[in-house]
């Protein structure tokens, strides 16, 4: 009997610990920012510490004005997040994926309002109207000493109304030394 009680107590403690560190701290994933979109991946080849701009993910806020309370890479390995911004989009083109740091490209990217960008952490996200969305733009690099760097998505924590939510984008980000290494890496980090 005593052994059974100990087992039940341990199970209760474990359940409480899991509850305290997972869902309540990050919030549910069914908030007004959606569920992260269609699964995909972008894989680039580059040197160690070579900076890439990743700007193919976006937020379409279907709720009231919200605020991002934290942005990070999800399940990241050897990839450095050097900067993150939210850029308003009023056209049919996102910032996209480029080599180097993000810069203003008004002639190449009409409707991408880089000059109105906000730091992602603390950014105010208005209600989406028409085709307008908010582009998540990151600067990332492969850390020294590693041939592969990757993340399973972008983790955005945000507050809308009186609730906290989490958005996990479904596009993986990978940086390798040669593009021929993309296939095997993307298979290994593919969603189960």
């Amino acid at each position, binding site marked *: 009997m005593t052994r059974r009680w100990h087992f039940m107590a341990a199970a209760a403690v474990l359940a409480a610990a899991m509850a305290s560190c997972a869902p309540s701290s990050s919030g549910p994933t069914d908030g007004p920012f*959606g*569920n992260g*979109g*269609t*699964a*995909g*991946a*972008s*894989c*680039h*080849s580059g040197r160690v510490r070579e900076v*890439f*701009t990743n*700007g*193919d*993910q*976006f937020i*379409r806020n279907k709720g009231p004005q919200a605020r991002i309370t934290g942005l990070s890479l999800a399940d990241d390995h050897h990839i450095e997040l050097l900067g993150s911004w939210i850029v308003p989009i009023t056209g*049919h*083109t*996102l*910032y*996209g*994926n*480029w*080599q180097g740091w993000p810069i203003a490209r008004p002639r*190449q*990217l009409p409707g991408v309002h880089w000059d109105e960008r906000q730091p992602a952490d603390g950014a105010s996200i208005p209600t989406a109207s028409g085709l307008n*969305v908010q582009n998540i733009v990151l600067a990332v690099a492969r850390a020294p000493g590693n041939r592969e760097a990757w993340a399973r998505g972008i983790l955005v924590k945000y507050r809308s109304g009186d609730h906290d939510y989490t958005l996990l*984008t*479904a*596009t993986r980000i990978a940086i390798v030394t*040669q*593009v021929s290494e*993309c*296939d095997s890496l*993307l298979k290994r980090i593919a969603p189960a």
Partner: protein
Amino acid sequence: MLIARLYRTAFIFHRYSDCVGEFVQAAEWAGGKIIKVVPALKSVAFCVPELPGQSKITKGTAATFGAGVSLLKVVGINLSAQTGHSTSAALAFQVNGNPIAHLGGTTDFPGGTKPGLIQQTP
């Protein structure tokens, strides 16, 4: 006596738009009594520039075109062996040498919840 015959195949062209601009592409051919309708390439409205050089992108659904029409110059990958479009295939391509390439969706940005058909434009 030598008789010369001239055979002519009439192509019907449609106007499409992609991330770069508008273009005209043969969409049907009509020869004699046969009219062959090729599944139309849809216009792309939601675009994501992809960096030049060595990259590999995979997204949800691949747009394809009818057999016998090479889209190699249009979409950068040769889809001529396929007919129609798939709703489940993943499109994987390498961006090589183009100064800028775009990945475009017909109903939303690639990576969105319902991007529709996705294709690359050089």
